[in-house]
């Protein structure tokens, strides 16, 4: 079996002391360091996105009342309150619109994507398929630094006159494409530019992931021995590669409409406002799976490991992800049932949407099948993986309401939608915590405090549900999304108590995260040293030191003898059987 040239090049000088500080920590080409860079950037952005959510919740519970600690934002967005003194102010609807626009933008493009795809994709793919690095290490480094520039451009938008983008993360034209309609100037322009830059970064990452998985698998790592999390990241990379050019083109069109004076989306001069929605959601629906597929992969990995049991229906799990990859291109119209597109199309998109629910159902049942008959260990990763199964089930089922076109007429653009996509997309946070608690020892060489981690996981699950479940009720009551002050509507007065309840729950959810941040940083510097395989798992990364050195494998590349989920196998006395353990001479002579 031949080994790829790139991998060989690395193996000859697997010594970290050869590179200086800059090459090691800043402009690193090591996939593990790049993964860590994405990790900390997205954690930082999560703090910003989370604080914005807290500000929105304050506004919705106590509309137009002064809020502590925000007067520094200054006019014209926050009005000083003379009575309350220093540090108090109330903000207006322009700022509120920026808040929800940027909360979503940050959480989707700067938290979930860089964490699940950027951090864990980079860190795990070479380790789990048995490669020394990515196929294109320099491109990989570039991918992070391009992302970093995109992040700076996005953050710069907060400081320009007119404020940041305020047309929603969906940026429906012509609201987003004509500056006069929002009053936002360069904020929206920078928003477009930043997403184009970040998209370029994702393209580089995707090319790397696809190539690496196809070409650089260790000897014996056949397609159906690849861990499911790698399957999910590989399919995600393909979706990104195909979807991002559409978004990039559409963003360029909005930018040109705004800055150069073209009229792609201006109806008065022959443009078509609804074209943006078609382009955006043609990207946007695959994007939803870009966000959720890695979470599904992580969940499969962890449920199997902590049930000490093979994954139930490995092939079905892989094929259901492949079918999602195909179907996700033909469901975008379900975001547009009421947009004014031909209602006949509504019927077609309803049926395709119903069909794409099937693979998700298969995955849920197979997860249940995995824990059935297991020997469950309730460590922090397992608790979070189980929480993800629960929230994903709720999010998937609530999606059936809006897939049904007649019901969508009523609940479209209400808090029912907000509840639904937070159960799906914000629910990914459980897969994220599961992944962090699970791979932290491998990433940083130390263990996180388990008791704090379990307390954090359970409290997060409770407050998550207390925050997002009542939003279904608001939606059923007709509460529109993206409104600044619900008290402006007579029919929403009776629902205001629920808004207050949600806000208190959201504050509790936010405060709970201090446990996580504290645990993370304390463990980073003072955690117990991690052994190679603290969870007694099977996949290849656990056969390496924690953390693995440059080039990953000190000696020759591992040889893979079996699939990744041989837990409780009758072949061995222990309840796990690593992929690279050779059980005897002659059995796998072909790979030796």
């Amino acid at each position, binding site marked *: 079996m031949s080994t790829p040239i790139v991998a060989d090049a690395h193996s000859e000088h697997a010594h970290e002391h050869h590179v200086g500080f800059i090459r090691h920590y800043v402009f690193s080409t090591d996939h593990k360091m790049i993964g860590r860079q994405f990790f900390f950037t997205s954690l930082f952005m999560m703090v910003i996105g989370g604080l914005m959510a807290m500000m929105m919740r304050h506004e919705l519970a106590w509309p137009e009342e002064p809020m502590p600690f925000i007067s520094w934002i200054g006019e014209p967005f926050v009005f000083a309150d003379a009575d309350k003194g220093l540090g108090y102010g109330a903000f207006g609807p322009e700022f509120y619109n920026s808040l929800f626009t940027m909360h979503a933008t940050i959480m989707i493009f700067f938290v979930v994507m860089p964490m699940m795809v950027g951090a864990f994709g980079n860190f795990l793919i070479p380790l789990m398929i048995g490669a020394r690095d990515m196929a294109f290490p320099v491109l990989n480094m570039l991918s992070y630094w391009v992302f970093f520039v995109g992040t700076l451009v996005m953050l710069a938008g907060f400081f320009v006159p007119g404020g940041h983008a305020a047309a929603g993360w969906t940026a429906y034209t012509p609201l987003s494409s004509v500056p006069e309609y929002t009053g936002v100037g360069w904020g929206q322009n920078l928003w477009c530019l930043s997403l184009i830059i970040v998209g370029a970064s994702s393209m580089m990452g995707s090319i790397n992931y696809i190539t690496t998985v196809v070409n650089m698998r260790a000897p014996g790592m056949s397609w159906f021995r690849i861990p499911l999390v790698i399957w999910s990241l590989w399919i995600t990379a393909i979706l990104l590669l195909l979807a991002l050019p559409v978004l990039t083109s559409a963003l360029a069109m909005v930018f040109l409409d705004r800055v150069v004076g073209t009229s792609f989306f201006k109806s*008065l001069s022959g443009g078509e406002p609804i074209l943006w929605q078609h382009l955006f959601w043609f990207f946007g629906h695959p994007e939803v799976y870009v966000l959720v597929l890695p979470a599904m992969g992580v969940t499969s990995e962890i449920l199997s490991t902590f049930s000490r049991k093979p994954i139930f229906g490995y092939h079905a799990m892989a094929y259901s992800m492949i079918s999602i990859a195909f179907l996700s291109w033909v469901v975008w119209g379900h975001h547009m049932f009421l947009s004014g597109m031909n209602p006949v199309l*509504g019927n077609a998109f*309803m049926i395709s949407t119903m069909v794409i629910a099937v693979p998700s159902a298969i995955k849920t049942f197979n997860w249940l*099948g995995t824990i059935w008959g297991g020997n469950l260990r309730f460590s922090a990763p397992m608790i979070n993986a189980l929480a993800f199964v629960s929230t994903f089930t709720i999010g998937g089922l609530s999606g059936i309401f809006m897939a049904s076109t007649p019901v969508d007429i009523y609940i479209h653009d209400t808090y029912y939608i907000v509840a639904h996509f937070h159960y799906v997309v914000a629910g990914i946070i459980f897969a994220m915590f599961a992944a962090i608690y699970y791979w932290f020892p491998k990433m940083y060489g130390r263990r996180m405090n388990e008791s704090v981690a379990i307390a954090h996981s359970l409290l997060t699950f409770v407050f998550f549900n207390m925050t997002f479940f009542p939003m279904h009720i608001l939606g059923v009551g007709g509460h529109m999304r*993206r409104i600044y002050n619900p008290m402006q509507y*007579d029919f929403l007065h009776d629902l205001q108590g629920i808004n207050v309840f949600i806000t208190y729950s959201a504050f509790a959810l936010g405060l709970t995260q201090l446990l996580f941040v504290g645990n993370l940083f304390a463990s980073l510097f003072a955690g117990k040293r991690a052994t190679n395989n603290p969870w007694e798992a099977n996949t290849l990364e656990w056969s390496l030191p924690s953390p693995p050195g440059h080039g990953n494998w000190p000696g020759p590349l591992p040889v893979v003898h079996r699939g990744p989920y041989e837990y*409780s196998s009758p072949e061995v006395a222990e309840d796990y059987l690593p992929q690279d353990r050779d059980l005897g001479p002659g059995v796998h002579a072909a790979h030796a």
Partner: protein
Amino acid sequence: MMSWLPENVSTYGGQIDGLFYFIYYLTGAAFLLVHVALIAFIFLYRGGDSRRAVYSHGNTTLEIIWTVIPAIIFVALGIYSKPRWDNVKRFLPPSNHQVRVTAKQFNWDVQYPGPDNQFDTGDDVTLENDLNVPVNTVIHVHLRSKDVIHSFFVPQFRLKQDALPGREIVAWFEVTKPGKYEMPCAELCGFGHSGMKGWVTVHTPADYDTWSHERWPQANAAAAPGSTAQGHG
């Protein structure tokens, strides 16, 4: 949860609510199925040193069952939903009672065609955020927008439809109960989106005749558009 639905007052709202309830019970059952199994497995199979997990890679029969059954249910639900969607959005019941609603940042302009039932003639009347219609009559709403995308939403009618600049979209409703209903905008349309709302006043036939007589005193009340004689038959 369903008791939070606002009262339905339109002819097709009952069909939408019925489907809402049906999906609610269907998904409620699926939710219980998954969560009862999840919680039961968590208790039944919690770890112990003396036990060893079952060594199983799956069960093809089971997997086929839980692929095919959801597939049939989902597609059947789509087929079951289709006529109700067609009824609201595809097939416009005939009516000669029409009104033009033009959305703009941040108001609804409601243009009444007047006794000649033609838009853009001398007897048109335009009211801001004030839509008046008779009860038990099919109303055609010609939706337009002057600037950005807005969405015409009346929660009690179970009707929502985006208004697009550069196009006219005809929506319809028939209300069965007189009263005043809030008419918010449901699509983000700028800083004044929150608070962009109007009122739909649904009149009894007698009240509606009085209202149109006040608007068009010179016209014969019986010839006024949408008087009950011309309404939904």
